[in-house]
């Protein structure tokens, strides 16, 4: 600062000392330091945020990536017409197929191999065999080569998820079984491959955990999010427009405003209570249906979208509205033609965050029956997709995370990876659009 500016009273050219712009004066230096500090806070904030993101993503990836590979055993099997008929005759049909497989493999491996040992290594692939032969009866009597997943423990042993010592204490695999498995691996009978089944498969029980896949619940989530998007975005934006632009400003609208921000603070499980009471018990919609899940999540997402949309609408300068009104546009036109496009980034941010939240939410699904052991087939069409029992990704992950078998831990994290990919795909349009709409005026 010059003296003149420090002493407003000073006058006359002689009283003015010209400070050089090239040397930065004390005061400015101080302020620049404050500036640098401030800026570094910003950088630090971003860095902290991103480093946590990296940490989280790293731990998700390191725990979840193994879910994308699986250990398989390659077997050539011939099932005769009689064996088929005999198997189909039983109550526990899949077990009969499994016995055929075990017998055949044990025989192939050698005299001294214990079939029970083989069974412990390969797990329970009976259903896959049954599905194959009921669909391809012409293959009966022919030799067919199957590539079947091994039991979850064998898989865990080869992936390092479980240890030899640990297994010795359990009843699942004996040290001899592990030796045999090692041998099978050396012989190339056991190999490892990309686990498509994890991506396409459906929920599976603890009897055959390797078969569990996220596919069906991805479809469930897809239908749910479709409902959420189709309902919450228009309703949220419409409600915001009404409240911000049209509603008379009075006590009543204040109450509405406070109410909506308050809805955001309602724990998500309470939305589950509401959904259970209203959509299922009152309106008679089916339990465990993605439609109901979508409706509940819509109610939960609305406050987020409304709050961000209102903030964005409020940020549009009044002169823009005045300009539109001034050429004879109606309020409605001024809002839809001018204000809304300018508020778009905020609306999209609300949508991105609201949908992210909805996609990952489990608690309300707990009450409407989407958590547990749900859904084993893909829906045939849109109506089925909305109304048939299904799970959703977070519910599936939550269920897996509480299962005993360690393979589900891996699958839960793998599921989280899929969920995040789903999230990014879902949001990519919004993110790109938002960049388009961003402008300064």
């Amino acid at each position, binding site marked *: 600062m010059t003296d003149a500016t420090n002493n407003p009273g000073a006058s006359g050219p002689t009283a003015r000392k010209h400070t050089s712009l090239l040397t930065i004066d004390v005061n400015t230096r101080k302020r620049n330091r404050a500036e640098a500090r401030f800026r570094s806070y910003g950088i630090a904030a971003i860095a902290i945020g991103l480093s946590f993101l990296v940490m989280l993503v790293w731990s998700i990836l390191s725990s979840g990536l193994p879910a994308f590979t699986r250990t398989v055993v390659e077997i050539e099997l011939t099932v005769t017409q009689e064996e088929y008929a005999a198997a189909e005759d039983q109550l526990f049909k899949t077990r009969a197929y499994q016995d055929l497989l075990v017998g055949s493999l044990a025989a192939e491996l050698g005299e001294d191999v214990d079939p029970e040992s083989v069974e412990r290594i390969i797990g329970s692939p009976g259903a896959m065999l049954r599905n194959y032969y009921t669909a391809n009866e012409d293959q009966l009597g022919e030799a067919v080569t199957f590539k079947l997943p091994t039991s979850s423990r064998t898989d865990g042993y080869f992936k390092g998820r479980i240890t030899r010592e640990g297994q010795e204490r359990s009843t699942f695999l004996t040290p001899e079984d592990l030796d045999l498995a090692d041998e099978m691996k050396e012989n190339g009978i056991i190999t490892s491959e990309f686990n498509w089944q994890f991506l396409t498969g459906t929920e599976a029980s603890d009897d055959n955990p390797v078969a569990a896949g996220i596919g069906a619940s991805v479809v469930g989530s897809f239908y749910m999010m479709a409902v959420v998007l189709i309902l919450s975005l228009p309703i949220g934006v419409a409600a915001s427009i009404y409240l911000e632009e049209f509603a008379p400003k009075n006590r009543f609208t204040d109450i509405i405003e406070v109410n909506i921000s308050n809805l955001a603070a309602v724990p998500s499980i309470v939305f589950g209570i509401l959904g259970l009471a209203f959509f299922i018990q009152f309106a008679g919609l089916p339990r465990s249906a993605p439609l109901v899940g979508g409706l509940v999540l819509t109610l939960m997402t609305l406050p987020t979208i409304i709050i961000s949309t209102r903030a964005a609408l409020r940020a549009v300068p009044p002169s823009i509205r005045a*300009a*539109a*009104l001034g*050429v*004879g*546009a109606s309020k409605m036109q001024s809002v839809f033609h001018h204000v809304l496009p300018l508020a778009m980034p905020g609306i999209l941010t609300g949508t991105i965050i609201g949908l992210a939240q909805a996609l990952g939410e489990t608690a309300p699904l707990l009450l409407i029956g989407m958590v547990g052991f749900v859904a084993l087939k893909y829906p045939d069409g849109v109506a089925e997709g909305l109304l048939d029992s299904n799970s959703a990704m977070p519910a599936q992950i939550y269920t897996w995370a509480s299962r005993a078998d360690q393979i589900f831990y891996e699958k839960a994290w793998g599921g989280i990876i899929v969920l995040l990919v789903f999230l990014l795909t879902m949001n990519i349009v919004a993110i790109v659009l938002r960049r388009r709409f961003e402008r300064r005026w």
Partner: protein
Amino acid sequence: MDMYDAPHTERDVEQKEVKISARGVQVYYGETHAIKDVDVDIEDNTVTAFIGPSGCGKSTFLRCLNRMNDTIDIARIEGEILIDGENIYDKRVDPVQLRAKVGMVFQKANPFPKSIYDNVAYGPKIHGMAKNKAELDEIVEKALRRGALWDEVKDRLDASGTGLSGGQQQRLCIARAVATEPEVLLMDEPCSALDPIATAQVEELIDELKANYSVVIVTHSMQQAARVSQKTAFFHLGNLVEFDETGTIFTNPRDKRTESYITGRIG
């Protein structure tokens, strides 16, 4: 005061139809009483100038005439304003229709953050003034020409309206307002950021508009008021002090305040 002579000769004294008639208008901004009991008759096919010191309520009163004050929460209006004999504050009046009829150029240029073309085409579009693109193009070109902006922007109609210079923005807003062909045009200091040549063009436009419409213009330039207007209203501290033929106001003001304002002028 020779500069007033020329306009004088043009002024016709015959009484024209009253287009806008304000009676007992009061405007409050919260506590502030910004317009105090103003009565005024604005004639058709006439240019009326509002003059007065800064902050005296010219813009406020102007905004009453097309109910733009509705958009200011704290503004409260009393009294009645008749346009073609109909009270515009009547419940049955649709402000939208009113504003389509009573166009406005705001004091601060406020182009839409859209292309120049879209800025001008917006009004005609929502009023269905063009059957097709070609017609719309024509309307836009005509409006921009009337706004004395065409030559400067004809090569960049797609550029953003907010990327123009201050004066260009102001002319864009004028073009935007005339594009909808309103019956009454309210212009709040339309030439404040314009150079003399552009000012002359706008004044020419105003003169041209007068043939069909009624124009109200707020201006700080006595000369401009004298040049373009037939009637002049002088506001002071929210009061309409004097309203008369422009010539009378400038040459023979009745009120002391008017006189001191006029003579205190410098330009």
